[in-house]
């Protein structure tokens, strides 16, 4: 059975991608999925060679034929997303693709047309296949693109007989996050011992609980605030979430990034060994 693991944190900048990229280097033949489709960064460390590219259309968008429009105002009255001005000018960037305007237009002046919302890629990297994507600016349906990335990753795993899909999750708790963690075997929540990091990580643990996904936790930059680290440990104990390791604040992460390498390839130092320790614990829990 293919296992799926998502690395997630709620708050951005806690080290999700840094840690996930190390897992990629440490795993035996994983399939890698970058689910942060509006600001994907995994490829910076993995130098992928794109093998397959596909268009992502997302939801259709309204298009209005002004010659047919009689100015009845039904589109403006019925659109709930403010995509029409009172003078019936259409703003496609505000359209959520619901098609209600096309439904109510008595003159058939509105068509729903395909939009080019982004691209998804299957690439080769030195650690195995990477499925990643790029959502165009301001696009809706980013959750759908994440779902597509995961779908393709599963197909690649099946084709190549690989048994682990490592997913680098997006920040937040909304549609992309939900799409990145529903149905996975486990999530690893990366905590940062700042009040903001704790606040957001607690929310993401609630999301994991809501979708009944088993969660593990680790603490990055733990020595920035050891009091808060204690708090996180207590919280996780109460919630029955195993803390599988701590990583100290370390500029190695940035240095490795500049070298275009994962931390475990770049250095044998303390950060690398902490991440290796965490990886072993995660694998123990996952298998």
């Amino acid at each position, binding site marked *: 059975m293919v296992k799926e693991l998502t690395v997630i944190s709620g*708050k*951005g900048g806690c080290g999700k991608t840094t840690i996930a990229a190390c897992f990629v280097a440490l795993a035996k033949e994983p399939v890698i999925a970058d689910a942060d489709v509006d*600001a994907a960064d995994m490829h910076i460390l993995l130098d992928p060679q794109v093998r397959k590219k596909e268009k992502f259309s997302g939801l259709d968008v309204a298009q209005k034929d002004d010659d047919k429009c009689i100015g009845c105002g039904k589109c403006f009255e019925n659109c709930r997303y403010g995509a029409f001005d009172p003078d019936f000018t259409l703003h496609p960037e505000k359209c959520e693709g619901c098609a209600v305007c096309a439904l109510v237009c008595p003159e058939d002046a509105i068509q729903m047309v395909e939009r080019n919302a982004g691209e998804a890629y299957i690439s080769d990297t030195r650690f195995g296949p990477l499925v990643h994507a790029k959502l165009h600016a*301001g*696009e809706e349906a980013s959750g759908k693109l994440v779902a597509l990335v995961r779908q393709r990753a599963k197909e690649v795993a099946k084709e190549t007989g690989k048994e682990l899909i490592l997913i680098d999750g997006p920040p937040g708790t909304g*549609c992309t996050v939900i799409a990145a963690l529903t149905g996975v075997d486990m999530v690893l929540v990366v905590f940062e011992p*700042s009040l903001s990091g704790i606040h957001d990580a607690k929310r993401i643990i609630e999301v994991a609980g809501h979708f009944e996904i088993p969660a593990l936790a680790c603490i990055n930059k733990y020595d*920035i605030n050891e009091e808060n680290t204690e708090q996180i440990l207590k919280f996780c104990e109460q919630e029955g979430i195993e803390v599988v390791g701590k990583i100290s604040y370390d500029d190695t992460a940035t240095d490795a990034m*500049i070298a275009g390498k994962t931390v475990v390839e770049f250095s044998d130092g303390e950060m690398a060994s902490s991440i290796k320790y965490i990886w072993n614990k995660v694998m123990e829990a996952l298998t």
Partner: protein
Amino acid sequence: MRISVASGKGGTGKTTIAVNLALSIDNAMLIDCDVEGPNSHIFFKEQMVKLKDVSIPAPEFDLDKCTLCGKCADFCQYNAIAIVGEKLLFFEELCHGCGGCKIICPEDAIAEVDHHIGIIEKGGTESITLYHGLLNIGEPFGVPIIRELKGFADESKITIFDSPPGTACPAVEAMRDSDFCILVTEPTPFGLHDLTLTVDVMREIGTPFGVVVNRDGIGDDRVDVYCRNENIQLLAKIPNDLDIARLYSKGVPIVEGLPEYKALFAEMFDKVREVA
């Protein structure tokens, strides 16, 4: 005047810039639009108080009237309705509340009820009002809350919007209609990459913008070079200072713990005002 603080990458310091800017200028208010993970309130001692619920309309089906014709399911662009065998299934989390199913139903079997997606809270100090929203756990779409939050902007004040990370619809909704956008980045390859994505968004929506480099001193100078080549104004650099990180971790604004930084934020605002 409306200033939004944004970045493609998470954790670059949006909230730090938004909060400290508000504390360093006169007549400011703050609206935290990161409804999936609001953090601005952490830097104020005052408790947030619930102001209102946010709901979107969702269909309610009268199964006595429903003939299972499937028109609603066919119409729904979000796949929130399905007819399986003799049963109508509704997936509330997928519904965007467009009202199309109600219009298309030939049997008048669909009414609309409120579907609760989150709340708006108010807090802050006597001089700086703070509004933020919280999307319910498990709810995917925060944009309706962001839209309502933006309505609290007081035109007589300098409203600072703390945007959610990324470049997708929630981030763009928060940045739209601003007079100026401050893009926060770090001098790292991730920071640079995500900055270029955000710059694309800014150029598309046509809002004037400038860049703040946070944690200056780590990484390399590629963000500087990029800004110079692209003719992008550099508004300020905040040094990579462990004291700042420690203050942040405790929820203390920089300008409170290290008041000498007030001048940096005031100067940042002067540069913004020259353009906006």
